[in-house]
């Protein structure tokens, strides 16, 4: 692929000048929001100016169906008034609009007469500037180069009965300022890419929705072997459609299940990451994303899995969608251990819930845009690697399934009853992964039932599940990564097959 930067890119146009001017206006106005919020009596004021641009292209069966360039900017302000929280957002960078919105949000907060005043804990005053590593900034990439990539991706998908590819290059500049002294400049950069692939064979069709999101600059396309990965996924879907068969023997008795990093990723995200969110544990998402079965457990004492289960949440990993150095409340990011040897160890917390848990925030506050409040979110969630190779996991399995990827899944809103339906899956017999492909094996279990069945984790850590995680109302879809090595579950009774 040719180098991406060229004079035709948008950064060389008048657009860049306007962006710089808007960023300056936005930062100035964010600082004015702090002044104004304090003036009208708020105990805490936080303003977040976000300036972003998205260039997108969409294709169906290789032909372009749409393209768009959408810049966006605005400010989101949180004010704490008499212990009640108010949030105001506006997209026109004008003082009068800011004043009106903040005043209204403050009034509404005051009128809500909170029975339980919010305490954000010790003041935080971090001053920093950071950005995601980008060798070739996305805004410097010309449209021809993006088209060339898309053409190459579409080439890989030829032969499928239908395919859709969507590319959105998204660069986000943020400026966070608070009346406690926090001032943080940051820049995020994502290549948001999705494919919907349908393969057809005699026995029917199979579909795969692929989230292919990368974080960083254009160089991530080459570094991640992106094209080769797409080619591989297409080959695997075709193979599954042509070869997978229903194997009744697997329903007759409990079997061993080994899942690949993609499936490990969705499991660790849904069955561990979500229930560890402090706002869910304490009920704040009660009517939306739900509560958490962790509510009735004791942190540091309650067992939810076997000794082999160790789960990490870490926003400090570079070149991932979950990467940040400071969260959207200005708290310095750090690694969190959600489960240690099967025992729940640490929930994900923002400042409000950090105070409620008595531990302080562990920097889990994220907001998807200027018009959303920062709430507790995952970043990069994974099963800590074990000592095994895949071959060692397989060698003493008499009868089992290797579920390399998944299709349909869901989990209840306490994050306790989950279902994962296999896409690419193989029969394991007498210590070997056979060529026999298993059609749609279903692992339908409880979180504790499943995690207690883990007896080994491989050393092959991969983040094979980039995803957009949805939570809250209004919805906030935020980029995350999840993964693990291969995980072995003993004595699983399948919920279905075929």
């Amino acid at each position, binding site marked *: 692929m040719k180098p991406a930067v060229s004079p035709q890119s948008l950064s060389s146009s008048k657009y860049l000048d306007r962006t710089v001017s808007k960023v300056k206006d936005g930062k100035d106005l964010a600082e004015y929001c702090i002044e104004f919020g304090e003036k009208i009596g708020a105990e805490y004021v936080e303003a977040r100016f976000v300036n972003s641009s998205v260039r997108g292209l969409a294709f169906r069966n290789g032909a372009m169906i749409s393209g768009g360039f959408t810049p966006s900017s605005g400010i989101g302000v949180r004010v704490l008034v008499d212990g009640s929280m108010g*949030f105001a957002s506006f997209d026109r960078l004008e003082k009068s609009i800011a004043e*009106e919105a903040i005043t209204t949000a403050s009034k509404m907060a005051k009128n809500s007469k909170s029975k339980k005043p919010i305490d954000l804990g010790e003041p935080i005053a971090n001053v920093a500037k950071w950005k995601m590593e980008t060798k070739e900034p996305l805004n410097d990439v010309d449209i021809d180069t993006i088209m060339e990539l898309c053409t190459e991706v579409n080439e890989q998908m030829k032969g499928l009965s239908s395919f859709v590819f969507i590319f959105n290059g998204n660069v986000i500049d943020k400026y966070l300022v608070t009346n406690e002294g926090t001032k943080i400049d940051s820049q995020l950069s994502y290549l948001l890419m999705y494919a919907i692939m349908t393969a057809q064979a005699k026995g029917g069709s199979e579909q795969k929705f692929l989230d292919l999101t990368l974080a960083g600059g254009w160089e991530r396309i080459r570094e991640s072997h992106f094209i080769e990965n797409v080619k591989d996924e297409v080959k695997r879907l075709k193979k599954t459609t042509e070869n997978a068969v229903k194997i009744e023997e697997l329903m007759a008795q409990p079997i061993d299940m080994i899942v690949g990093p993609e499936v490990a990723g969705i499991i660790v995200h849904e069955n561990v990451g979500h229930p560890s969110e402090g706002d869910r544990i304490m009920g704040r998402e009660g009517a939306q994303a739900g509560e958490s079965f962790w509510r009735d457990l004791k942190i540091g004492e309650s067992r939810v899995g076997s000794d082999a289960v160790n789960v990490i949440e870490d926003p400090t990993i570079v070149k991932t969608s979950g990467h940040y150095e400071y969260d959207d409340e200005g708290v310095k990011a750090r690694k969190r251990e959600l489960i240690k040897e099967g025992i729940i160890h640490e929930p994900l917390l923002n400042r409000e819930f950090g105070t409620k848990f008595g531990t302080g925030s562990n920097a889990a506050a994220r907001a998807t845009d200027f018009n959303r409040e920062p709430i507790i979110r995952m970043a990069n969630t994974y099963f800590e690697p074990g000592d095994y190779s895949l071959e060692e996991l397989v060698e003493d399995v008499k009868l089992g399934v290797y579920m390399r990827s998944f299709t349909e899944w869901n989990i209840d809103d306490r994050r306790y009853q989950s279902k994962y339906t296999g896409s690419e899956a193989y029969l394991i017999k007498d210590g070997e992964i056979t060529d026999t492909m298993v059609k749609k094996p279903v692992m339908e279990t409880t979180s504790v039932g499943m995690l207690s069945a883990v007896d080994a984790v491989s050393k092959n850590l991969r983040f094979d599940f980039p995803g957009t995680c949805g939570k809250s109302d209004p919805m906030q879809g935020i980029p995350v990564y999840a993964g693990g090595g291969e995980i072995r579950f003993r004595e699983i009774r399948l919920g279905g097959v075929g």
Partner: protein
Amino acid sequence: MIDADHLKTLGDIAIDYGSKKTDAIIARVVQTKNSQLRFSQNNIDISKIWEELKLELFVVIGEKTGTTDRPITSEDDVKKTIDDTVSFTKMLPDSMFFAGLEDKIQSYNKLKKQYDAKIDTFAEQAPELINSVIDKTMSAGAKRVAGALMLKKRYFFFRSSLGPEGSSRGTTFDLNVRALQDELDYSGQGLACGTIPSKSEKNMLEAGVKAGRLSKQAIGAVQGTPGTYDLILSPTVAANVLGSITESANPFYIMMGVSPLKDKMGEQIGPEFITAYEDSLFDGGLNSTPFDWEGSPGRTTRIIDQGILKSLVHNTTTSKMFDTETTGSSQMASLGIGMKMLLPGISNIVFDNGNYSQEELFDVDKPTIYVTCNWYSRTQNAQTGDFSTIPRDAMFLLNKGEMKPIKNMRISDNVLRMFANIDALGNDRTQVYWWEVPTPTVISTMRVRDCKMTAATQ
């Protein structure tokens, strides 16, 4: 809010300036002022307000098309937006999904019950109302109450360089109340939505009472037994699981391979007592509109007629592709984050009301499960309709004249098969809109034969 004349001025500037640089251009200047109260654990957590003024554009240059939306304040902003969009569009290859726009100037229906002049005052007083909703929910049996009330006000001016022009204003509200006991397992949901919040306080309080009552009835729920059951789906569940069939009657979804209705036109896909419409003129519909994004007049289109798939929804492009007429369903839809596309899409899904009373629906002669709410529906394959979804909140097993609470089950079935197996339609038609039902759906309770229910194996 900015006065309507100013929005028109900005829209006129966009068309006058943009039509010199494009073959066709549509501009919408949209101003919104929304607010929300979120509450949990019997307490308001946060009060939110949003103020936005945006210019949405669709441009045609030869065979190329481009879209954008962005905040504007002045004439300069409008011109810059057009310049950027034109420059970007010129760099693109020809679009394979464009065949024209509405070019006739037509009269539009006046919509009723779409605007509440008292919404600002209502928003100021909403915290008091929410505290009353919490009290009512508790009185009905809840120990803990959570939820959200969203209030929206919108005004927009629209003009196309091909002639159509119009403006519209509207208000909406939607309230979601969830009642919980101290235990995590026993909960109930109540919903209320509409367009005139200041005349809907009673509905909102009733949503709380319903949630509280269901939560109390769910106390003592036991693990359900997997198997095949007849299901009674509340309007909330019917809207998500079966209302989605109507939404799938979209040529774009069919072309993308994500609709189960390919090759089903003219076929009997449901019982004769099922008729469903795309109805952008529905009184009090959350998405009612006198005209679509291109300026085609809004209308009522029969999608499913007595169980037979009769029509898809169309905009000008897909109507030409399918050699038919537009159904006035053009929308500027989102594709991923930040990108938009002019596509057909349903405004309000409206089902005909049924004849069965609650008593008649629940008069069953074999084990039947009543599902009051569901979430997290996912398909295995959108073309075949294989899917599963999780009943959330109160769920009951009806057996031998008794109704007992059960929990922890999953509907794992096929949406086409379930649609064909609807065997009774309630007379309790209501509008549903919430997280799991993003397209407003007017629908009744439905009873469906022989559905597969599964549960965790360990």
